């Protein structure tokens, strides 16, 4: 579930590296948007692997809350999308269920779900990536590894958001047919290229959801990860918060921690 985690999130969205700016006169908004996304991606390169704990808190319009606890492991893959593994600890009916995903820069991601009650691994049709993830307001495509290649970009403007000067840009899914969105508008701070806010627009171009990311901390003196991600669905009034704790980097994970057999071993 690393995806959620941020490398990714950070990665995606905008901002031209500062040193590009002088040359930016002839640069189009699209080129600048892409350049910003690439720079954000570049800054998160090399983290290797990490684990973290996540608490997912769902809230409906009635104000009622429900929680799910998830542990996640992420492995950086050079030249392709990351691999990630999420293990559900609660609700207790799905305890031990594990979700494995291989994201790809080009083509559909691959996903598997291990069902402990059945002791079997089931492949998931990853074309349906736009649906709700565990009943939350996050879709798989929101939390999957945000590879630069999965979107096209357009830089809009720079503006201050919560005290930070940000690049504001639009990104459009390349896989239009299977995405739930027509576009996203992202705020990425200029100083560190961290994702601050994203607005998601649905198929009829209406604002559907807003994600805000808070509590960034720096790990290994290089990689920024957030504590809190809040997604509000403006249409249904429901919301989901993700609270991240216990980040551990470069603990020596490898490919063999991310395959079908490893799924069954997770506790």
């Amino acid at each position: 579930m690393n995806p959620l985690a941020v490398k990714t999130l950070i990665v995606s969205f905008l901002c031209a590296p500062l040193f590009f700016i002088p040359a930016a006169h002839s640069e189009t908004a699209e080129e600048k948007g892409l350049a910003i996304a690439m720079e954000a991606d570049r800054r998160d390169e090399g983290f290797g692997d990490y684990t973290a704990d996540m608490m997912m808190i769902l809230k409906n319009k009635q104000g009622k809350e429900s929680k799910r606890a998830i542990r996640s492991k992420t492995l950086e893959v050079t030249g392709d999308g990351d691999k990630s593994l999420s293990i559900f600890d609660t609700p207790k009916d799905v305890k031990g269920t594990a979700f494995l995903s291989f994201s790809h820069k080009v083509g559909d991601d691959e996903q598997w779900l291990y069902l402990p009650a059945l002791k079997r691994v089931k492949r998931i049709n990853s074309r349906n990536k736009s649906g709700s993830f565990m009943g939350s307001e996050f879709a798989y495509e929101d939390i999957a590894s945000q590879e630069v290649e999965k979107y096209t970009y357009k830089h809009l403007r720079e503006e201050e958001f919560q005290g930070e000067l940000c690049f504001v840009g639009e990104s459009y899914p390349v896989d239009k047919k299977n995405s739930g969105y027509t576009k996203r508008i992202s705020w990425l701070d200029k100083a560190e290229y961290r994702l601050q806010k994203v607005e998601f627009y649905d198929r009829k171009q209406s604002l559907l959801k807003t994600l805000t990311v808070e509590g960034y901390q720096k790990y290994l003196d290089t990689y920024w990860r957030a504590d809190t991600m809040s997604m509000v669905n403006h249409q249904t009034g429901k919301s989901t918060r993700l609270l991240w704790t216990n980040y551990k980097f470069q603990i020596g994970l490898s490919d063999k921690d991310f395959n079908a057999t490893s799924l069954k071993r997770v506790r």
Partner: protein
Amino acid sequence: MQKIENWIGAVVVKYRWFLIPCLIFIALLSANGMRFLEFSNDSRMFFSKENPQLQALEALERTYTKVENVLYLLAPKSGNIFEAKSLEAIEFITEQSWQIPFSSRVDSLSNYQHTKAFEDDLMVADLISNAPSLSPQEILDIKEIALAQPMLLNSMIDKKGSVTAININIIKPDDGSYEIEDVTTAALKLDQLMKDKYPFLDVYLTGGVMIDAAFGEAPERDIRSLIPLMFALLLFLIVISLRSILATTATLLVIIFSTITGLGLAGWMGILLTPASANAPVIILTLAVADSIHILVTIFHQMRSGTARHKAIQESIRVNLQPVLITSVSTAIGFLAMNFSDAPPFRDLGNIVAMGVMSAFIYSVFFMPALMAVLPIRVKQGETEKSKAFTLLADFVIGRRTAIFWSMIALILLTSSGISKIHLNDEFIKYFDHSYPFRIASDFSAEHLAGLEIIDWDLDSGEEGGINDPEYLRTVENFANWFREQPEVRHVYTITDIMKRLNQNMHGDDPDWYRLPEQRDLAAQYLLLYEMNLPFGLDLNNRINIDKSSTRMTVSMPNIGTAGVLDLERRGREWLMTHSPDMTTYGSGLSIIFSYISERNIHSMLKGSIIALVLISFIMIAALRDIKLGIISLIPNLMPAFMAFGVWGIFVGQVGLAVSVMIAMTLGIVVDDTVHFLSKYQRARKEHKMNPEDSVRYAFNTVGSAIWITTLALVGGFGVLSFSGFQINSHMGLMTTITIIFALILDFFFLPTLLIKLENKK
């Protein structure tokens, strides 16, 4: 009182040049508020915030999702959906429907998430994709699947495979950015596009949003079509009864001023126009006529007997001020009693009409006579048209009083007995007649598919994740199966169907495994796997609450009316009480609230009606200064409503929301005739010392024709209302018309004979 009446008459004549512009200014100033008037288009406007059924529905909506819908029905003229071109049309409309503003979910045959086993995996995919490329065999397979899915059959597709539905959920945002026109315009455009692009299809459009829009459209239609009709009718009546262009003009000014004052004040007060309250202008126009007619008839009467114009005006005010004030106040009380109604539109209607009626009183007493004092009206003197007809009528009534008295008693008993045949029932689809396209579409839907009446059941397992408990699932399944056995039920949506299907899929599609999983964690994990596979907008969040402790089951019926809905809901609740007491809950949904509304309104209005009755009776007693006459007056005041109910019971039987306000409303109106008749009768008894027979004759001669004319105006006015395309209004109009006719019959035939009988007994 005499003094005041004389004084007002004198003031009106003396200060005519001041009063005329002053009152015109007041009328225009109040009318200025009309610019704030807006139409409400929300079918929920009929429910007050305190309505417990509405509160229950809103709680359910906050737990799952509040949805309104737009519903298309496609029916190929060939009678067969399962052809490539029809399937392509379904795919197209499904795709396009996502573009309808505020849409959050589109469900159709094509995007139905069909599950099947594939090798060892679960495949979840659209039932239909890329229809033109499908082979005849593939289409046959799709048909077989579609007709076998309990989720689809009778909901999205009929048994014959001839009609299919596309349901679009619309979420109204809370931030006020919702404009219903945005949705209806887009929906109608798509409707047209489908008809143009696929001429081999019949396309129907309905759904909650279209109904809401019709609620907004109804008052506009009524105002456009009924008011001109009403106006023409009144004009005709006034001209023939007054035979004076100037007097007619003055009367028209009074009724126009009264109407725009009533509406203008409503605008200043921020009242929203609803299909019910938009009747206010028609009703004010009708009621405002009476005051002027009574005053004018006396003026002309006086002038014909040789009184000078200004003197005649003063005399008319002296004679009429009290009865006109009493009738205005009693009418206003009757309408104000509508504030007891649980349905806000009726409160608004009552308040607007009450304001209109009181302003009619002011304009009739201060403006119209002042105007008459200025205008050069003339009448031929000596032509005192002692109405022969009314003399004959009086003689007839007095001569045959015993026979008439008993036939009246018989008539009252006979008609009132029909009340026992009355039953409460509202069919909110039928509020609108067939001139509304959505009504035709709704009837079509009720005929072939599930219909628009639904009962939602929020089935709570009592613990987090409890919906995966095999026992819970079994109970829900049994509950659903029980509903499916009920003759009026067309479709039941329950997640247990998904669970059974998943269990089968996970066992290589073996039909023996089409049953509920027997382990809780297994059920939870199947569901998780399934949910992970669902695309945007098609998740189960509108069916399962966030902590997976409860699910929503939806039972659909064709238009069975509120009585049927209530009965089914009660039986469902009893089933739960017997089989799963912990899960017992009330069914919910718009159908349910509408089902309770008539009953709630009749209860709430009962109090209002009694208070109105007591107040009006007190006024009658005080005005007549006679307790006995006051009590006698109750009979012709109250009985007409019962008689009308009885006649309705005999000929129609079914009454709904409209009738709840009837008693209070008609009481205030019919009391007028009684007041006029009794006050003249009493004047004859006291001032002229006549015996009861001669007093009756005197009353007939003096107010008979005015009562006749005002009754005609009322019958005409409410008769026009009965042509409304909105059933609440047409029923109210028709019932009121019947009531007024009975009131006239009782005032002319029963009241006089009763008076003579009682007074001669002494």
